[in-house]
């Protein structure tokens, strides 16, 4: 009796909804600092704000204990140049990272300066960051004094593909020692420890609450953010949060172009919950967004599909040699010490492999030759890294139960057996609110952290920018009185949110999701021009005006999925508007306009921004390095930064 259909068969009826239904009730919460999204960035923001003694509320769609992309775990603490084993100066490493076009120099500088301190605080809270049990004595990269374990990633260049980034001789590393920039961690211990610390510091946690929109002063678009609204996705209760400052630490958007709403996670790299809610609410409140026109290639139908993160357990991980079906070694990087963590072959090697596959020199399928690895390195990869990485422990355990023994068995690799052509569908490409050196958006009272920042990094980026944004939001909240909430704005949002439960018939969230995805596949894909983009806006407008009013939700959970669809719809509209605003093609943005074919002309090498003003789209621009001198600007604004937390 654990499947819903069991109940139909046994009782002749579905089980009753297990939570009280409270669509008609409203809860109001007053706080100094409001954190929207309780993943890695959100937890760190809450902790850092609560340490200043202010009242902090944290709102999370799932349960803070394991929510977010980093909730299940994390195996690499990347770009930690301030760690004691690093051979490169943090500011120099940050500059190097920010040379990548359309990167985020502000977030990068914060990460490089503060993520080592952040990791030490993680350890204080109970996170495991060292090989204290001496389980991996003799592994390359293990420092016997500190028991820290360095990963081969970025030990030579900051790139996964050889030749993509020019080798750099750092002034701070003239002898070209290994950079030692990435630390292996036992990240499955992190999230529960963060939740515990939030509670210990008195953060009020509202789990299973989806924030749906921001509150602005007097309800005016572009005015100061004075709180947010949402609802409990188990009970349906409406929530109004009034705050002096808010941190937007929501997730990105990973399913906008996907028709299929089943097999979640396999196709999107992330859970169903990542639907771009934060970008949508920042847009409606009038914040300027950037890089919304950038797109990624969807990890579907390519070799990427079978990454560990995708839930498929592909054999391609650190220090693992790849061989063909006859055991012949391939010129594929091992992502290890011998190739400095490179993940994909250089273009020349890829050509050799393709020709080899076609001529029969390399027989398919390829395999990861775990037995060929030294025992300790095999354990580091299989036991430490893959067990601690988000969503992969279950694969290691399941394979173990199925009889897989890495000392004896080669694990199949999926490259080429499922083709080698890139997928046509896109993903949203990491755009987000424009931020300043306080990680403040263009709206007063609204700060941004983690994946919600444009061009965000990974776990350590989320942690360090969350910690930073929480600190800055608290400093602002200390100086300002509460703002005025508009009753009209609350009433309008309630009407929007509850519409799908107010009629008995219509279309389900899954069908609407597919409709939005199809419009994006047609009009926001590889070939773009003004006509197609405008057709796309018309298509989404039609969905908004004709089909959204037909949305029907059976219960608070499906209501959440329905409102997530509306986030995706808004997200699609922003992408198409941003695509219209960039009248040039760009390789780093994976953005090609048929009507503006010139690739990266100098006059378009800038951030294009879009925002709503009186509900009209207003494009703008910012120079590529609008953040100025990273070291000087960071230092000017962080004179009071006290390093690792010493308080209670």
């Amino acid at each position, binding site marked *: 009796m654990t*499947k819903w259909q069991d109940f139909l068969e046994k009782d002749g009826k579905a*089980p009753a909804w297990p939570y009280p239904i409270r669509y008609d009730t409203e809860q109001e919460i007053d706080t100094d600092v409001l954190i929207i999204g309780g993943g890695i960035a959100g937890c760190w923001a809450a902790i850092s704000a609560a340490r200043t003694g202010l009242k902090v509320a944290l709102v999370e769609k799932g*349960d803070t204990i*394991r929510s977010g992309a980093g909730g299940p775990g994390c195996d690499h603490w990347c770009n930690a140049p301030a760690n004691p084993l690093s051979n490169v100066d943090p500011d120099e490493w940050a500059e190097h990272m920010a040379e990548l076009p359309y990167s985020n120099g502000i977030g990068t500088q914060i990460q490089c300066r503060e993520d080592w301190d952040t990791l030490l605080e993680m350890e204080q809270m109970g996170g495991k960051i060292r090989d204290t049990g001496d389980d991996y004595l003799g592994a390359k990269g293990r420092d016997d004094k500190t028991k820290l374990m360095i990963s081969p990633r970025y030990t030579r260049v900051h790139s996964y593909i050889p030749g993509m980034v020019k080798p750099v001789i750092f002034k701070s590393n003239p002898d070209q020692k290994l950079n030692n920039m990435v630390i292996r961690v036992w990240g499955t211990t992190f999230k529960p420890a963060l939740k515990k610390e939030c509670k210990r510091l008195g953060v009020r946690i509202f789990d299973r609450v989806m924030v749906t929109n921001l509150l602005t002063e007097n309800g005016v678009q572009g005015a100061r953010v004075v709180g947010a609204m949402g609802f409990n996705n188990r009970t349906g209760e409406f929530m109004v949060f009034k705050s002096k400052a808010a941190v937007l630490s929501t997730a990105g958007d990973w399913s906008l172009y996907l028709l299929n709403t089943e097999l*979640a996670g396999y196709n999107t790299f992330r859970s169903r919950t990542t639907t771009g809610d934060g970008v949508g609410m920042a847009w409606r409140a009038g914040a300027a967004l950037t890089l919304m026109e950038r797109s990624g290639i969807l990890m579907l139908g390519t070799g990427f599909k079978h990454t560990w993160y995708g839930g498929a357990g592909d054999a391609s991980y650190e220090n693992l040699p790849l061989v063909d079906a006859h055991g012949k070694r391939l010129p594929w990087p091992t992502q290890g010490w011998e190739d400095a963590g490179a993940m994909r072959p250089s273009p020349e090697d890829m050509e050799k492999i393709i020709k080899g596959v076609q001529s029969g020199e390399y027989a398919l399928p390829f395999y990861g030759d775990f037995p060929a690895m030294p025992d300790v390195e095999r354990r580091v990869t299989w036991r430490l890294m893959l067990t601690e990485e988000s*969503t992969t422990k279950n694969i290691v355990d*399941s394979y173990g139960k199925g*009889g*897989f023994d890495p000392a004896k068995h080669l694990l199949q690799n999926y490259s080429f057996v499922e083709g080698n052509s890139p997928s046509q569908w896109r993903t949203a490409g990491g755009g987000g609110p424009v931020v300043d050196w306080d990680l403040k958006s263009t709206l007063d009272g609204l700060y941004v952290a983690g994946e919600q920042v444009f061009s965000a990094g990974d776990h350590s980026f989320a942690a360090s920018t969350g910690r930073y944004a929480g600190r800055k939001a608290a400093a602002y909240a200390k100086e300002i009185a509460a703002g005025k909430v508009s009753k009209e704005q609350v009433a309008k949002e309630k009407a929007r949110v509850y519409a799908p439960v107010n009629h008995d018939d219509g279309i389900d969230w899954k069908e609407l999701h597919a409709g939005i995805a199809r419009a994006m596949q047609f009009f926001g894909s590889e070939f773009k021009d003004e006509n197609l983009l405008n057709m796309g806006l018309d298509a989404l407008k039609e969905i908004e005006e004709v089909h959204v009013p037909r949305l029907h939700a059976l219960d608070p959970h499906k209501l959440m999925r329905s409102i997530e669809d509306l986030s995706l719809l808004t997200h699609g509209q922003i992408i198409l508007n941003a695509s219209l605003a960039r009248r040039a093609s760009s390789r780093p943005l994976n953005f090609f306009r048929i009507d503006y074919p010139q690739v990266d002309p100098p006059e378009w090498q800038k951030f294009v921004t879009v925002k709503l003003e009186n509900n009209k789209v207003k494009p703008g621009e910012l120079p590529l390095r609008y953040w100025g001198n990273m070291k000087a600007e960071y230092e000017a604004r962080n004179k009071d930064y006290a390093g690792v937390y010493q308080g209670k």
Partner: protein
Amino acid sequence: MPRKKTYALPNVTTPGQPVIFHPEVCNGCNHCVEVCQIDVYIPNPEKGKPPVILHPDECWYCGCCINDCPRPGAMTFNWPVQQRAYWKDKATGKVLRDSQ
């Protein structure tokens, strides 16, 4: 011949049953219901019984429910067929699947 009564039910989603509960070990503490970030489960109407898998299609196999289960063995993964692995014994060259 099927012995059970046949009902008119809609199709089951893919996956339909991402995990299998083992009622002899599971005491219905509902910890998995709490750690799941997408609410795949709801508590069983009968106290002490394993949770009900209500939204199996939304499972992204993050593994938290099983990894954090306070009673190991109370639930196991049930990987969808297309997601099963292939591997090869280095000594014999025999190709194996995880159900073999």
